[in-house]
């Protein structure tokens, strides 16, 4: 049996599968590796929250920057696409009949990703255009609760029944 090398170079890797199957596969691999790269940095960065909270706040400033908001949308997209396409692969593995509808299912995974990303992108980018940040109301209530529980420093008039 001839052994066909699966990928001798990047260009070979990018061309040998052809048609939709090739693109879904490349995107699945690229998103998987992209999420992994982010995850390694993200986990080390989050671990500083206990012993170096100031350092952690510095990292959070990055998350809040305009540029990184686009990165967050990209990360969100990667996870959504990888999850939906991964589900397709799993369904095809355990339900062989689905293999016959492989092309349609691949398009469905891509289509659902785009559909889901429309409102998500809107909500995440809107603050850059002067719109409200998600969770504004939650945040306000949290600040109010905090102020209510520290009367020692702030002379809050306590209404006791």
């Amino acid at each position, binding site marked *: 049996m001839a052994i066909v090398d699966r990928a001798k170079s990047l260009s070979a890797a990018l061309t040998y599968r052809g048609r939709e199957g090739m693109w879904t596969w490349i995107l699945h691999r690229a998103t998987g590796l992209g999420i992994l790269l982010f995850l390694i940095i993200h*986990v080390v960065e*989050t671990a500083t929250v206990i012993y170096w909270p100031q350092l952690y706040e510095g990292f959070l400033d990055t998350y809040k920057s305009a540029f990184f908001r686009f990165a967050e949308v990209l990360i969100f997209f990667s996870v959504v696409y990888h999850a939906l396409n991964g589900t397709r692969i799993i369904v095809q593995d355990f339900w062989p009949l689905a293999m016959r509808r492989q092309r349609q299912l691949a398009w469905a995974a891509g289509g659902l990703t785009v559909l889901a990303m429309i409102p998500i992108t809107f909500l995440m980018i809107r603050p850059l255009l002067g719109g409200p940040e998600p969770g504004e109301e939650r945040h306000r209530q949290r600040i109010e609760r905090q102020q209510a529980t520290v009367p020692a420093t702030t002379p809050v008039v306590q209404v006791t029944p």
Partner: protein
Amino acid sequence: MSTVIAPAGSARGQARRGGGYEQPQGRRSNFELYSWFFMRLSGLILIFLSLYHLVWWNLIVGVEHLSADLVRERWQNPFWRFYNVALLLFAMLHGLNGLRYSIEDYVRKPGAQVAVKAVAYTLILTSMAIGAFALFTYNPAVAAAAR
């Protein structure tokens, strides 16, 4: 069906058009079979773990409202630390095995492949250990002192 054959020396199943690999036949060693199954199992679990994490921080809390205090508040609840341990473990191991597939595809010289794998595994396992350390040793009293 598939015209593409897995590289020599790999017990992985055949690559399939459209992504994924055929279920490998468990012969001498069942490792590839377990790894194939683990990718599917962890993938299914990660759908819920990772998507909820993203929806929570990006769409419900809002990144502008993130703070060290907010994270510590969440970590007071052992459930969320356990949740993070699960997310950390499954995402890292799933990603590690996925990266192994890619390395075996792109780095064909045996010596170079071992070297690249060693670097990749060290990087991933070290960051995983750091993350697990933070979650397992979380102690509200210590955290409050380090403010």
